[in-house]
C-alpha cells in the first residue's frame, strides 16, 4: 500500500477534561505534501508531537511504514525515519557548530565519524550551504538558521519530513530558497503553515484542524480560506442578493 503513516482515532488533552484532539485520523501517502491548517491553539503542533511519540495520546493508534507503533523503541525507530523540523530553529540547532549539528543525526543512527562528515558535506552541497560549514550556530541569521535546521534533518535521510511553521520570520528571499528546496525533495511531508501563499505553492492536499476535528479541504477551498477570503465571501453574498 502507498500509505506511509496512519493515525487512527487519536484523542488527547494536556489536562484531564481538556480535549485538544478528538478522535483525529490522518493518512499520509507517498509523494504527498500534506498541509495542516487551522487556528491558533487548534492542536496542530500537538498532533505532530504525538505522531513522533513525544507525547502519548490518550487513545488511538499510530501506524508507520506498515508497522504499529506502541513502545518507546518503536517510536525511536520511527523518529530515525521521520525528520521533524520544529517551530523555532534555535531549539533545533543545539550543537555549537554547524558541522557538529548536522553530524548529530547520522552519528545517532550509527554512522562512523568519517561517514557522518561525508553526509554533512553531501547535504550542505545539496542545499548550497557549503559556506556555512564551519560557522558557529548561534551567530547565524534567522534565515540561515532555518536552512541549516532543514539540512540537519535531511542528513538523517528521512523517508518523511514534518515541518512546523517553517516560514515563520523568513523574509522573501529565504522563503523562496526554502520553497525551492522543498519542491525538489522527493520525500513525502506534512507541513503546518498559516501562510496561504506558501500553502498554495506546495500543497498536494490540505486538511484543516478545528475544534479537535479534521476537515478535508479541497484545493479550491484552500485558496479561498486565505486572507482575501472575507471579501470573496461578502462578494458571494452580494452576488447572491441579485
Amino acid at each position, binding site marked *: 500500500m502507498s500509505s506511509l503513516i496512519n493515525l487512527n482515532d487519536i*484523542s488527547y488533552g494536556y489536562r484531564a*477534561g481538556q480535549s485538544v484532539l478528538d478522535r483525529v485520523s490522518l493518512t499520509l501517502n507517498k509523494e504527498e505534501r500534506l498541509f495542516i491548517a487551522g487556528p491558533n491553539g487548534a492542536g496542530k503542533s500537538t498532533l505532530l508531537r504525538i505522531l513522533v511519540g513525544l507525547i*502519548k495520546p490518550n487513545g488511538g493508534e499510530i501506524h508507520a511504514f506498515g508497522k504499529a507503533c506502541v513502545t518507546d523503541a518503536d517510536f525511536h525507530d520511527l523518529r530515525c525515519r521521520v525528520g521533524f523540523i520544529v517551530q523555532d530553529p534555535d531549539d533545533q540547532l543545539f550543537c555549537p557548530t554547524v558541522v557538529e549539528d548536522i553530524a548529530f543525526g547520522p552519528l545517532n543512527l550509527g554512522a562512523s565519524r568519517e561517514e557522518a562528515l561525508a553526509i554533512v558535506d553531501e547535504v550542505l552541497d545539496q542545499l548550497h550551504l557549503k559556506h556555512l560549514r564551519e560557522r558557529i550556530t548561534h551567530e547565524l541569521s534567522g534565515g540561515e538558521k532555518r536552512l541549516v535546521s532543514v539540512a540537519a534533518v535531511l542528513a538523517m535521510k528521512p523517508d518523511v519530513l514534518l515541518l512546523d511553521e517553517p516560514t515563520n520570520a523568513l523574509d522573501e528571499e529565504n522563503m523562496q530558497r526554502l520553497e525551492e528546496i522543498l519542491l525538489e525533495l522527493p520525500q513525502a511531508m506534512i507541513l503546518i503553515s498559516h501562510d496561504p501563499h506558501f500553502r498554495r505553492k506546495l500543497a498536494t492536499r490540505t486538511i484543516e484542524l478545528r475544534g479537535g476535528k479534521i476537515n478535508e479541504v479541497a484545493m479550491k477551498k484552500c485558496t479561498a480560506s486565505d486572507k482575501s477570503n472575507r471579501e470573496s465571501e461578502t462578494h458571494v453574498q452580494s452576488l447572491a442578493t441579485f
Partner: protein
Amino acid sequence: MHIVDGALAPEVLIGGGVLAVAGLGLGLRKLPIDKIPATGVLSATFFVASLIHVPVGPSSVHLIMSGLAGLVLGWTAFPALFVGLLLQAIFFGFGGLTVLGVNTVNIAFPAVIAGFVFRSMVSRRNPVAAAVWGGLAGASSIALTTLFVAVSLMLSGDAFAPAAKLVFFAHIPIMIVEGLISAAAVYLIVKVKPELLMPEDHVAGFELSASAVNTKQASEVNNG
C-alpha cells in the same frame, strides 16, 4: 564578589581547588545525560543574570541569584555556576584562573546549601509564603558567600581581617536587594510554573500522577 589572582595564600587556593573538584564531581554525578540540556539552558540564564544591573543606593550591582540557582538546580547548581565563573574568568577577565576553585566554592556551596534548606518550604503552593522563603534563600546564600569570601581572605593572613569585615558589611545592602528580587522571582514561578521549584522526586511523582490521570481519562472514554 570575585577574589582576584595573587591575593590568597597557596594553601587556601589549593584547599579551594580540592573542594571545588569534589563539589563538581558530586554535582556531575547527579546530572544524567538527558538533564544536560536543561541544566545548560538554566546555567545560561544565571549567566545572563550576572549581566543584569540593578540600582543599589547611588550605584548599581549585577545580580547573582545563586539562591535561586540552588532552589531550581540542587546539587547541579555546582557545575552550572562553575561554568558561568569559568566563562567570566576567561572571557571577561573577572576573577582569575588560580582562584577559580575558591570562587566556585564561595558562590556554589552557599547556593546548594540554600537550596537544600529552603526547597521544601518554597515548593509549597501558597505563592506568598513561598516568596518569603525564596527571599530568605536568596539573601542567605549571598550572606554565606560573603562570609566565605571573608573567611578565605582571613585564612590568607591576619592583615586581611579588616578588608574581610569591610567586604561583609559592604554587602549587606546587596543581600537585601537579592532577597527582594529572589522573593519576587519565586512568587512568579510558583504562580506560573511551580514544577520548576519541585524537588526531583516530586517532579517524577507529578508526571506519574499526570499519566495516571490520562489513563483514567482514556478508560472513561472507552467506557462511555
